[in-house]
């Protein structure tokens, strides 16, 4: 029977290490690219794109669940006109959101706020991902430490003897 850890040595060869390094590099590149995309500066958007994005975030006041972008009511049209004017006047997205929240209440914003209970909405999925990732790391480490047993010639001989005994009448 091989000693515990022998299999680890075999699985930890140069090829396996290179593969592992490559996997980590790909993961880091994907994570950095996703972060860069998510945090790209708002200044790269055109005014029309900002108006569209803001209208998609603001609830149509006289609709149940439509945004000002999707609704065709008079209020939604007025909001889109107002957003165009505010963006043209140079107001920031945060200021515009604040103005609407001050006028209609926080419920006019379709995206939850990033404080109070809204923090839970944003933070819980991140927390779950972190906890799940940590769990996977622990599980993978355990699996790696579990020795892979390989039958020696002596083990095979014992099994053959046992089979022979069973086969005897």
């Amino acid at each position, binding site marked *: 029977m091989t000693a515990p850890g022998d299999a680890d040595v075999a699985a930890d060869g140069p090829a396996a290490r290179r593969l592992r390094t490559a996997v980590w590099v790909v993961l880091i590149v994907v994570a950095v690219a996703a972060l860069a995309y998510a945090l790209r500066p708002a200044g790269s958007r055109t005014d029309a794109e900002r108006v569209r994005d803001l209208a998609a975030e603001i609830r149509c006041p006289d609709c149940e669940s439509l945004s000002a972008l999707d609704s065709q009511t008079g*209020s939604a049209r007025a909001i889109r006109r107002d957003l165009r004017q505010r963006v043209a006047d140079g107001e920031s997205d945060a200021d515009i959101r604040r103005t609407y929240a001050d*006028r209609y209440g926080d*419920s006019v914003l379709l995206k939850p706020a990033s404080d109070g209970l809204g923090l839970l909405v944003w933070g819980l999925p991140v927390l779950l991902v972190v906890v799940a990732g940590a769990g996977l790391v*622990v599980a993978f480490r355990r699996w790696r430490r579990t020795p892979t047993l390989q039958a020696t010639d002596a083990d095979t001989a014992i099994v053959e003897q046992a089979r022979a005994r069973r086969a005897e009448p």
Partner: protein
Amino acid sequence: MRHRTRWIAAAVGVVVLAVVVVLATQIGSDPRADAKTSQLAGKPLPEFTVRTLDGTTITSDDLLGRSTIVNFWNTWCVPCVQEAPALARFGAAHAADDSVLLLAVVRDDTRRAVEKWVASRDPAWTVALDPGGQAALAFGTRGQPETFAVSPDGVIVAYQFGPATQADLETMLRAAGGP
């Protein structure tokens, strides 16, 4: 290893418990409760401009110095039509008082429909159009009828969502410093 697993399990348990407690405290609370109240109560009158049917411009500055009732309505709105008799009685009761203004702003309707309605009813109050809906937006209206009381110093002191009775209007007027 066994202790570490226990710590991880305990940490996850604490997080789950905290989430359950937070969510449990939210049961029964309406996340859109602020949609049933005006956020402008107690705040200064927003800037706006409306235009009467004869072309006269009325701005927020024109309301200063008077106790004003601002009513948002439409001709096609059934609750607004039901409210109209109360507005008529209230308007008639204060028609001779220059310190009181009843301003009915059309929220989302055609000029033709409003002209026809005014011609048939001859209302004893000021009717104004809100092209582009900017005044309705400035007041944060969510529908019609909605009524706001404005004090002479330009503060929104009372509001009502839905049809108002004459008694409601008189109460709001008194809150706005009127007779």
